[in-house]
């Protein structure tokens, strides 16, 4: 019950999960307790402040009832039921501490301890072990089991038996996972790990093998260790384990932490909340925060374990400058570096005009930092040349949803997936890209929700443990619009649309036009089959399922946006949702899965060259006036340059200087040669980052950045949730990133005087209506807030478009398929599409500097066996991958996950340079690059290409650092 006072701290483990249901009142040890129906007696007692001893129960997973430590007596019932598996009933009278149950518990405990080593003082879980706690709680004082004469007690923890022979029951520690170890000698076989892997993570990597005394936890088959099993290293089992059996290696090495700070993951757009646990300023471990509303206590391998980059020796901690990029770097003071940068930028503007310089904001930095970087362009450079890496991922979402619904915001919160009945996943690979969301989705699918996957590749969701997609539409890359329009064709021509909803919520006339358009037989699945490669019957079934299966939710990713028709596909998805009445309540909606942690936030904060914060076009005088008042400058009314336009303008000579915060455009943006040419043509490139990234090879000024552990601020995740980032330790480089931007602005004469990011948030709130109600105090109080947060929604907005669309009536927009100019032909007969994998993140600058490389130490090219055979290629061969833009080499992985004619790779490693291959084609509306379709040829090769060799030589040269002059 909500109004119940919880007398324990926020980490209290209630033993079993919370339930929803009508109130039930019972008596526990003389106290009346009211809880929702379905709650266990254990949880009810815990909520009332009475902890019942337990070992096999924990509140992240369903009760199992195996240890019998939690027995209680219930008046009128026989025996001693386990409180974790017994649901409450009205009028029930429970006694948790009768002499009978106390005796049973002692007996249970004694049995456990008899097969457990007694080396508590040197155990890595000392002080953080539930077995210890429970032994104490039940008052266990001695263990009476005695070994028979001449032999030992059968046990799992001694390497040798009493008779001096090797103990057949003993197993060595499995330390194969780089982040945690498994010591079977300490296992109590409570199966919490197994259930966490199943229920929380959904991977089913663990089993209990054998029975009775022989039963033990096993990762994969008996031949596997943790690393070779299906384990994805999410750490849920480690967190669930009550003993030291599954333990973080960092805890084994550094000891148990004594303080903790709640903060937000800086990797993907799920935005998981974590407790950073420390000793002093030494980070010991990251534990997903139970009360984090995006992740509900779960995480993936990146957020939980891959933080080692923060203390990696490659980090640059001192500012550096150089006059030209063929010189080595010179370490200088902050003053000198900033003075150098400012005078260069000012000189360029003087000579080449106001619009000759610009900025790139980072989707990895905080909202406050992004706001300042765009303010630097608008308020100090006095132009709108600001863009962000969201350009290359979700800019079509902004345009497409803006046009149809009136706001680019995703419509739901992540909790919404728990109420959905049919999920359409298109152009996204959540198990790799958005793992914690994927775990929550899989949980819902195991409960019976149906899944439709539209993707050229057979992604893991299509079929994995206890999950099978109802329909997989393996479309040819580049034909999204044709498939989405065909889905609409089926829904409209078969009369499956929700007419009442459309009449009430949408523009009916526009719907008529749209219906006439999609009903044309040329959009039928039979007509588009040749083009898309999707079997017509399967597409029809998928459309029917989506339209009639209950709450339908659409989740999409970069496989939708990164196309020449990216914006059109987004509109098509919005059309699908509107025509089936699937916007405006729980369990439905159109949900962009954002790539980087703060993509949403960086867009909200006005990073785009045509929009001031809050998605308001710079042409609008009333909007400009707000900022002119606040900043005392005149805002340029003309849109600025987008990233690719900046590079074009640089080559043309009209754009000469750039400040890039926390992005590596040389590695992440398409057509590397073009990016390199643009950067090389500039007179002042300022890179502000943690490492000498690839872009820095072309930089004149390097300003060291700070990690998310070293600063305060906020990130906004894919559900518009503003989460707090809290400073866990002092910045190793001396300044948080917002301070560095402020120093640069002031070196140019801005006179800013922020002393804390909360002041920046106050400025955002004062100028941006959707953030009007946001303050640090409110975020502290609520834990997180979903914007819009203003007078109309003082506590934020979990669901968008509840009674009406933001723009009023939802708009149906005609979505004609236009083939991309990127076509296969005799020279380049295959289509390359790109993606990412779980253990690495984006350009890999962070994850490559952690142990995550054990899962992915190089990019490989997935190719269908048929295409491989035609070319005489075998698994693991070096191959040459060429497009009309360039060529590179990497190793082949032969797999039928990709269809014939399609090849696939990731772009996490700079040596591979997958973007040498991608072209400069882009979305028609937003110039979002077409990463997902490139015509290529694949052939045998025996080593790195000429470009790779030149490139690494150039990179080597440009990374030289001279020692600081004294």
């Amino acid at each position, binding site marked *: 019950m909500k109004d119940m006072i919880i007398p324990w701290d926020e980490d209290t483990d209630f033993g079993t999960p919370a339930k929803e249901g009508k109130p039930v009142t019972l008596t526990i040890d003389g106290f009346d307790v009211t809880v929702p129906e379905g709650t266990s007696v254990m949880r009810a007692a815990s909520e009332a402040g009475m902890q019942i001893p337990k070992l096999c129960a924990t509140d992240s997973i369903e009760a199992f009832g195996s240890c019998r430590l939690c027995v209680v007596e219930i008046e009128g019932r026989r025996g001693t039921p386990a409180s974790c598996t017994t649901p409450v009933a009205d009028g029930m009278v429970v006694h948790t501490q009768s002499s009978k149950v106390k005796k049973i518990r002692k007996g249970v405990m004694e049995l456990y301890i008899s097969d457990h080593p007694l080396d508590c003082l040197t155990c890595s879980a000392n002080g953080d072990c539930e077995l210890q706690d429970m032994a104490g709680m039940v008052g266990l004082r001695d263990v009476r089991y005695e070994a028979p004469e001449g032999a030992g007690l059968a046990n799992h923890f001694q390497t040798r038996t009493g008779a001096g022979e090797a103990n057949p029951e003993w197993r060595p520690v499995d330390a194969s996972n780089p982040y945690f170890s498994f010591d079977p000698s300490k296992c109590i076989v409570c199966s919490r790990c197994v259930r966490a892997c199943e229920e929380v993570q959904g991977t089913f990597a663990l089993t209990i093998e054998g029975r009775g005394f022989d039963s033990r936890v096993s990762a994969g088959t008996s031949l596997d260790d943790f690393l070779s099993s299906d384990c994805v290293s999410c750490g849920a089992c480690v967190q669930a384990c009550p003993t030291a059996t599954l333990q973080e290696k960092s805890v084994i090495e550094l000891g148990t932490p004594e303080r903790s700070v709640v903060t937000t993951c800086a990797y993907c757009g799920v935005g998981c909340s974590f407790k950073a646990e420390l000793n002093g300023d030494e980070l010991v471990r990251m534990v997903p925060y139970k009360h984090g509303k995006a992740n509900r206590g779960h995480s993936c391998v990146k957020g939980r374990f891959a933080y080692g980059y923060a203390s990696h020796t490659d980090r640059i901690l001192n500012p550096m400058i150089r006059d030209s990029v063929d010189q080595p770097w010179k370490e200088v003071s902050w003053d000198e570096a900033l003075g150098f940068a400012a005078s260069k930028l000012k000189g360029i503007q003087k000579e080449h005009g106001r*619009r000759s310089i610009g900025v790139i904001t980072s989707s990895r930095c905080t909202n406050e930092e992004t706001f300042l970087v765009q303010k630097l362009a608008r308020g100090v450079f006095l132009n709108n040349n600001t863009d962000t890496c969201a350009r290359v991922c979700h800019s079509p979402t902004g345009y497409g949803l803006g046009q149809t619904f009136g706001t680019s915001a995703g419509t739901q919160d992540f909790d919404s997936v728990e109420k959905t009945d049919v999920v359409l996943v298109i152009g996204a690979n959540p198990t790799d890209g958005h793992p914690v969301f994927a775990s929550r989705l899989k949980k819902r699918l195991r409960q019976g929700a149906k899944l439709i996957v539209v993707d050229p590749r057979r992604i893991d969701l299509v079929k994995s443990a206890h999950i099978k997609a109802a329909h997989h539409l393996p479309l040819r890359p580049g034909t999204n619009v044709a498939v989405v329009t065909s889905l609409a064709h089926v829904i409209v021509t078969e009369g499956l649309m929700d007419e009442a909803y459309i009449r009430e919520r949408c523009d009916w006339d526009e719907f008529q036009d749209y219906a006439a*358009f999609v009903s044309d037989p040329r959009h039928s699945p039979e007509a588009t089959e040749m083009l898309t490669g999707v079997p017509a019957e399967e597409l029809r079934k998928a459309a029917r399922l989506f339209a009639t299966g209950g709450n339908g939710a659409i989740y999409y990713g970069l496989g939708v946006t990164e196309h020449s028709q990216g914006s059109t596909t987004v509109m098509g998805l919005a059309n699908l949702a509107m025509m089936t009445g699937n916007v405006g309540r729980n369990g439905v909606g159109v949900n962009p899965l954002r790539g980087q942690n703060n993509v949403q936030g960086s867009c909200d904060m006005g990073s785009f060259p045509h929009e001031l914060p809050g998605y308001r076009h710079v042409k609008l005088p009333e909007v400009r006036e707000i900022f002119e008042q606040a900043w005392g400058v005149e805002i340029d009314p003309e*849109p600025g340059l987008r990233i690719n336009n900046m590079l074009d303008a640089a080559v043309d000579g009209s754009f000469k200087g750039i400040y890039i915060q926390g992005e590596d455009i040389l590695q992440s943006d398409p057509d590397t040669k073009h990016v390199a040419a643009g950067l090389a043509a500039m007179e002042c490139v300022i890179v502000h980052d943690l490492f000498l990234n690839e872009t820095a090879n072309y930089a004149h000024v390097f300003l060291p950045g700070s990690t998310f552990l070293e600063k305060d601020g906020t990130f906004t995740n894919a559900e518009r949730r503003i989460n707090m980032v809290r400073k866990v330790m002092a910045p190793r480089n001396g300044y948080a990133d917002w301070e560095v931007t402020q120093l640069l602005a002031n070196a140019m004469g801005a006179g800013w005087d922020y002393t804390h990011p909360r002041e920046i948030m106050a400025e955002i709130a004062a100028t941006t209506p959707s953030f009007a109600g946001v303050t640090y105090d409110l975020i502290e109080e609520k834990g997180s807030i979903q914007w819009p947060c203003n007078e109309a929604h003082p506590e934020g907005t979990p669901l968008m478009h509840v009674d009406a669309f933001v723009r009023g009536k939802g708009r149906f927009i005609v979505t004609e398929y236009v083939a991309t100019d990127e076509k296969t032909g005799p020279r380049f007969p295959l289509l390359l599409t790109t993606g990412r994998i779980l253990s690495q993140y984006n350009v890999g600058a962070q994850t490559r500097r952690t142990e995550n490389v054990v899962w992915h130490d190089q990019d490989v090219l997935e190719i269908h066996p048929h295409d491989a055979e035609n070319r005489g290629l075998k698994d693991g061969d070096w191959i040459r991958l060429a497009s009309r833009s360039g060529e590179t080499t990497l190793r082949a992985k032969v797999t039928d996950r990709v269809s014939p004619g399609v090849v696939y790779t990731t772009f996490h490693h700079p040596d591979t340079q997958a973007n040498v291959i991608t072209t400069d084609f882009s979305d028609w509306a937003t110039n979002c690059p077409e990463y997902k379709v490139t015509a290529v040829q694949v052939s045998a090769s025996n080593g790195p290409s000429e470009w790779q060799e030149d490139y690494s030589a150039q990179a080597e040269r440009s990374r030289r650092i001279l020692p600081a002059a004294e």
Partner: protein
Amino acid sequence: MSPDKMVRMANQIATFFKTQPGPDQSDKVAAHLRDFWDPRMREQLLSYVSDGGEGLDDLVLSAAQKI
């Protein structure tokens, strides 16, 4: 920007608006260009149009009069 690239980008925009119902397609193309192309890009387009505008979609040519 190379003329080829500019022509392609402009034509892509025209191709979308051409498919939209209504009589005001060239206004829509012009508005899109005004909203998203920085002044130097629009100037490049205009000077290309006055040089003959080779390869540009008719809709771009008529929109160019309105930006």
